[in-house]
Structure formats: C-alpha cells, structure tokens
C-alpha cells in the first residue's frame, strides 16, 4: 500500500508491504542509516527516532503506521549543523564504539525539548531506554547535563533555570 509522510522535513510517498518494519524501511529503502538495529524488540533503543516529536523505537513501528505523520531521524536534527547536544558529547568524548550514539542523541533531544535544563536524575530517567555497553553512561550523562538549551538560544535565565 502507498503511504505518505514527512521525513526530516520533506514530504515523501512510498509503496510498502503491511508487514514492513519502519526501521527496515528507513535503513534499507530510504538510505537513512543512523537508526541502528541492536535487538529488534525494543530493548536497546539504538533505533530511536522521533514520531511527531516523540521518541519511539522504530523496530516496534510498522511502516504503515506512520502514514500522515512526521518522522525525524538524527539526520533531520542536523539541518542547522551540529547541535549543542552533539557539541557537548564531542567535547566529553562521550561515546566509544558509537553504535548507540544516534539513538541517545535523539532521546536526549526529546528530553531537552520538554525540559530545558534537566537534572542528572531526569537525564538518567529519560535515557534509561537506550543501552550502551561501552561507556558506563557517565560521560553521556555528564555531557547532557552541560547542555542548557536556554543558554544556547540566548535566553539565559528565561526559563528560570538561571543558566544552571
């Protein structure tokens, strides 16, 4: 069946089989390889993308379910270059093998959209669905904690966070 959706800001139409998984369609048919497969059952979060701004595990979504919706992958979050989240992750040498990185960045993006300056507890909570076997998470959590969205948008203190 034919479905239409918005992918990283661009309208797309595609013929899909009703049993096709979104992750597979993104990777093998649309050439977006930042979402990765690590478990194929929603346990690891390496395939995390945004569906209408909310993070989902794309291995648990059927392609037909996204008809009429908006999808954003890590590729779509870099339309204005590398984000402040990515900058901090780079500065902190946060990732090692890097396989889980796209999923973490997408999940962290959602967190910071809803909570400009999350506490360490809130960061741990928000990223608990993403597995990383290399880093012990500490350098990832440290980096996210250094991102204050208001600061980067020049509204320091505007949210009441006082720039942390």
């Amino acid at each position, binding site marked *: 069946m034919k479905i239409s959706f918005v992918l990283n800001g661009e309208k797309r139409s595609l013929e899909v089989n009703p049993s096709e998984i979104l992750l597979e369609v993104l990777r093998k048919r649309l050439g977006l390889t930042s979402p990765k497969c*690590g478990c194929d059952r929603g346990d690891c979060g390496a395939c995390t993308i945004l569906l209408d701004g909310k993070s989902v595990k794309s291995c648990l979504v059927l392609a037909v379910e996204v008809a009429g919706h908006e999808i954003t992958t890590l590729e779509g979050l870099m339309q204005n270059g590398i984000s402040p989240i990515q900058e901090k992750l780079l500065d902190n040498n946060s990732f090692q093998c890097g396989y889980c990185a796209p999923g973490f960045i997408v999940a962290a993006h959602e967190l910071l959209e809803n909570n400009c300056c999350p506490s360490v507890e809130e960061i741990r909570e928000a990223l608990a669905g993403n597995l990383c076997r290399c880093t012990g998470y500490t350098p990832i959590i440290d980096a996210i904690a250094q991102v204050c969205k208001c600061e980067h948008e020049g509204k320091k203190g505007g949210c009441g966070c006082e720039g942390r």
Partner: protein
Amino acid sequence: MKEDNQASAKFKYIGKNTKRVDGKEKITGAAKYVDDIDFGNSLLYAAIVESPYAHAKILSINTKKAEKIPGVVRVVTGNEFPFRFGLYMHDRYIFAQDRVRFIGEQVAAVIARDEATAQRAAKLVEVKYEELKPILSVYDALGLSSKKENKRSSEKEFGHNPKNMIHPKLSEYTHVPWFFPQDNSNIAHFRKIRKGDLESGFQEADYILEDEYTVPRYAHCAIETHASVGLCDHSGRLTMWTASQSPHTQRHLFVEALAPLGFTHKDIRVITPYVGGGFGGKAGVSMEILAAALATCVRGLPVKVIWSRSQEFYNTYQRQGVHAKIKMGVKKDGTITALEQLLYWDAGAYVEYGANVVNAAGLSATGPYRIANVKIDSVCVYTNLPPGGPYRGFGYSEFLFGLESHINEMAKKLKLDAVDFRLKNAIAEGDKLAYGASMNPNGLHECITKVAKAIEWGKKYPEDNKNKSNIVHGKGFSLFWKAPAMPPNASSSCFLKFNEDGSLNILLSAMEIGQGYFTVMAQIAAEILSVPPHKIRCETPDTDRNPYEWQTVASHITWSCGNAVKRAAEDARDQIFKLVARALEMQQEDLYLEDEAVKSKKDGKFSLKFSEFIINGIGQKDGTFRGGPIIGRGMFMPEFASAMSDPATGQGGKPNVHYTVGAAAVDLAIDKESGKIKINKVAFAVDAGCALNPDLVKGQITGGLLQGLATVLYEDMRFDDKGKLLNSNFTDYKIPTTLDVPEEIISIIVERPQPDGPFGARGVGEHTMIPAAPMVGNAVEDALGIRIKSMPITAEKIALAVLEKSENGGAGH
C-alpha cells in the same frame, strides 16, 4: 579530567585529553558499520538451520523442500565444506559434520533473494538426528560423578572418559605447541604451573584455608550484533566485509579453512569498517566463516549473514564458566607461603580460542601476589554448551573472583586488615612470577594506597549497629592484574602517508572498537611529527591496503600498535631530515620538527613547512627537485617473548610481555530485606605506564567498571537441563542502563613507565572490569558477614542468605 599526569608536562600532544578523532563521525551517524553498507539489489541473504539438540548424531539432511521455494538460490550443508579450522586449535567446522555439539550450532544454510524467504525455507530443511546424552557440566565431562568427588585418583588417569567424548578425534587435532590436550578425555588443554615446593610451603604456614568458588557464563552484549558479507567473484577473488576485531587473523583463518578450494592470502580481502562494540566477542573468527563459505557457492553475488540478538547470545563466543578450588597457606605475620588453585573451565563445544583463555588464566592465577610455592592446574573442559572464548578480561575476571574473595577470608581469619594483608604480599618489580620470569616495573603499591585513601578504608558506618534499619553498609577491596595473552610473535605494523598540505593518513589494521585507539595513535604520530591530531586521519582496515596487525585484543594495541606508529613516524621524520640536509646542504643533526615545519638549531630563522615539500620535493637552483612523497613505515614484535616451557611445570618461557596492575574498592549499601545493593562509590586505580590520553583512560574505567559490576550484580546465562540457553535477549539477560550507574566513580591513574611501551604506555582496556566482582563480594561480606561464593551476587541470593543466617546462624553460601 585534569591533565595533571606526568606526561602532560613533558609533551605537546602526549598525555593530553585530545578529543576523539572519530568523534564527529560517531555523533553525526556518519560512521559506517557493516550493516550500513549498501550492497545493491543483488545482495543475497542467508538463514541458518540450527541444531535443536546439545549433543546428537546427524543421520541425514534433506534439502529438497527448501530448494523448491521461489527465491531460494542455494541450500548448503556441511557436505560441501568438510574442513576443520580454528585459531589456536583446529577443532571446529564451518557446518556441523557427523554430529552437533551445542544447541544452535549451524547445520545448513539457505541462501535466498530476501531475508524472509531465506528464513521460511530454512524451516523446511529436514534434519534427522540421533540424540546423544548432553554433557552439560565439567564434572560430567571429566567423569566425576559429583562436585564433591573431585579428588584426583592419579595424575595420569585424571579426567579419562573415553566412552563419553565430545570430540572423539581430539588426539588428531592440530594445535599450538603450548596446548596439552589429554587423550581419551574431554580435556582440550591442561596448563600446569609448579613453582617452589608446595608441601613445604603448606608446612611453613600457620593457617591453611580451602574453599571453592563458582563463576557462570556471561555474554559480551555489544549493541551491534555480528554481521558479515562475502562476495566471491568469478575470478576467484573473495572479499569479506565483517564486524571484526581481527581483519588479518580472519583473512588467515579464511585462507586456512578454505585452502582446499584453492584460496591463498592474496585471493582474500577483509574489509572492516567501524565495529559497534567488541569486548572480545568479535575477535578471531566465529560466524564470519559462514559468509565466506557461502559466498563461494554463489559466485558473483554478495551474500549477507547477520546475527539476530538471540543468535548473538548462543552462537558466538561466550565467557566461559569456571569452578575454582583454592587452598592457601599463610604465616601469622601475613606472609603467603603457598597457593594451590584448581580451575575447571566449562569451555563449551569448541575451544579453538577458549583454550587460550584457560592457558592465560593458568599462567597468572596467583594474582598480583608474591608467592614462593605454587601449584596451578587450569583445565579446559569440553561441554555441550556454546563455544567459550575471549571476553574482556580473558580469564582473569573469572579466577580473580575466587582468589580475591579467598584473600579477604584469609585476612579475616588472621585478624589482619585486608588492605595491609594485600600490601604485604603485593608483587613488586623483579619478583619471580609463577612461571619463573621476572615481574615488570609497576606501581601496584601506589595504586593500593591511593585507592585505600580515596575509599576512606577503615572508616566504618557506626550507625549500622545502632539503628534497626534494614540498610547496612560495606566496603570491599580487590587488586587486579592482567597481561596480554597472545602468541609470542604477535605483531603490529603501520604505514604513514603525508598529504600535500602536511596532513597525514595513517594506515593500520588494529580496530577502533570504541577504546579510542585512533585518537591515541594520532597523538603518538603528532608528538613525533609536530602535526596536530586533528590533521591526522587513521584508516579502518582493508587487508589489501593496510599493513598487518595480529588482532585488536589483549589490551595490547596502545603498546604494540603504538610502538609501530611511533617507529613509522620516526622513520618519516628521519627521511625528512635526510632530504632537507641533502637538498639544502644542511647537517641532519641540526634539524628538528616543530609546528608542522623543519627547523634548525643553528639557524633560528630557518623554517620549512611540510606543505612546501612533503609531496612535491624541494626545488633546486637549476629547476630540478629533490625528494618525493614521504611515507613512513614501522613495525613492532616483542622479540623477547617465548611460549616454550616445561609442560609439567610451566617453567622456562616468557609467555607474557608484561602485566598492567591496579587496585579498586567499593562502598555499597544493602537492603537486608530485599537484598538489593546500591553502589555508592567506587575508587579505581590503574597503572597505565603513561596515560597517553587521560580522558580516554577514564572512559575505559567508567565503561569497564559498569560492565564488571553487572557480572556480579545480575547478569548470568541460564541454561535448561537440555543445554538450551533460556535468556537470549535483553529482556531476560539484563545489562546495565543509565539507572545502574554508581553514584560516584573516582578514577586514579598511576604512571610507572613501561620501558618498552610508546612513551612508557601500557594497555588498560580489559583491566577496568576485572576487580569489580570480588570487590563487591568482599563488601557484601563486610556488610553482612556472609561470604557468597558463586556469581552473580543477586538481590535474591543475598536476601535468602540473610534469611538463612538469621534462622540458623550459618555464614557460608
């Protein structure tokens, strides 16, 4: 992290927290892993027909129904590949031959145009089996009827089990000269160490303690599963793309395994892009042999084999389980006089790699202690469970759980402080190792005292005794050590190419599995050549173009490959000096490199930028040029190492190049009712020799530590009574999440230089996970007075032990 290490002051790039040179590729999703590569519409997929039995004879295989399915290209069975191969011992097959030896073993494969068709058709392959009794424990495999009855009748007869052999042809298998398989048994390798006089060592002792400890199997759980694509073209050229830690070793094993088909080294090319985590699981060759073999059956078309998460659990290497029996003798003053360690390893169905884990552990099972009289038997036992193999720590995590638990118990019995007892016996430079060689320079004592201070050793929680809360606190200590386990001639090499603008491409064949070696190699070249690391690109391996590297294992890359890179950079530097001296009539010894230019000690004004000559040469008055592209070459092999030794005593060789040592301690809280442990603080010190990049060392500490804590707190492979793995997914085999991170980690880097390391460096990658289990076991004992002798130390186990203790006052478990 502050760059307050020794190296930082002396060097421009060494010892600095340089940002990862692969960082940008990884945070943007640009980094390519095997499954990200587009092989086009002609890509074929293979599905594997797997054994449902742990031990059975294969009577027949009928592929007719599967072959009739539209979209199926080929069905392949073991009949087409009757070849045996392996890394250290040729004991495994591409596909099972006359018998299967573990549940999930590959019996046949279906190659189809798409994945779904391959999977559907694989279910139609009919295999008839005759079930055999599976051997699921080391005691069954050794013919010892129970765990209790493991006394050894006679040295010669030990383990004889001729009627129940998993590998009846064991005596015909070829293997490295340092393995000692036992005929008519399931013993694939028996490593013996005999030092001093054990009997008199025990006679000297005032106190002797004997106990047993058990460690189960564990899974690596890299987030990327194994993936492999093979393409054999019509000229007979085989190209492999693999998620691997070992491109050259893979090429060599592919050549060996497929030699009957006429392949030589020049015919096989292994390309290894980024790897989504290794931890030893992607070392050697496991499932990759399938893509290599299958590619030869469908010439001209690429074929992909990719493991599901479940297959990743049951058909790659697993960390081997071990049963340890320890007897230790100590004098009243705390001197350890004798140690006897008997280690039975559950090595699984094939041990071509795992037997070397057993060997490495046997050589070093004294731990980092000076002990005059030693007897170690490290026994590699075949069982009908999945193949054991390399896992970060390579046997050391396994034996250290028992040994460091035992050390604590010993101290307790003698009423000695556990840290003082360790300090008294801790190994020092020049001490004689169990196999006779000398201990390398090391900062173990410094690590111990720094960790003791950081964890506030000796400071108790007095409130634990006063209130009636269910929460109790404990502290636990552990030392650790590990040497790279590798053949004595394992080597590394490097090509270093300058570009027109003075930037560099470095060709290597170690793997960037996340540890950050690309960055560290760039820092080494940068230091020698004065080119900043961000102008240096390290290339992922392609065995056609990148020079040889043995494998990215053993925590030897910083040291071994680092030496190769340093030599390549020095070679390029010397070529530059020679050229400039010749072209400009200067003296070589007056020249030095600074800020990407050649400068002169004699003439302060002289400065010749690399970009002015490094490719196109130096112009002469007559319009001719001198020079040409500068290419450095370097290699390293530890020429002092030797695996030759007396099989009966292990004495005589120098099997280990050096040890990296350290200490760690934990401060934890336990809820006595639920048994749940909360890790409050961990202090971890490692002697890195020279921390080339302290931030990356710290990354190894936070990562390895959590991986190690998980093995002691909850991870555990569970098999049923038929040998089937019950928890082959992340729902049932839980690995840590962000919610499991210790409250505080204190990373301490000690730097006692390794004389033959690049800038004094030695590896730290595996070590960071090794002390986690015993330090937790010791802290649990400190908090509850209960010694738990089997891993993992789960909440359930603690809660039950607390209950048992309150009911009958028992103290062991």
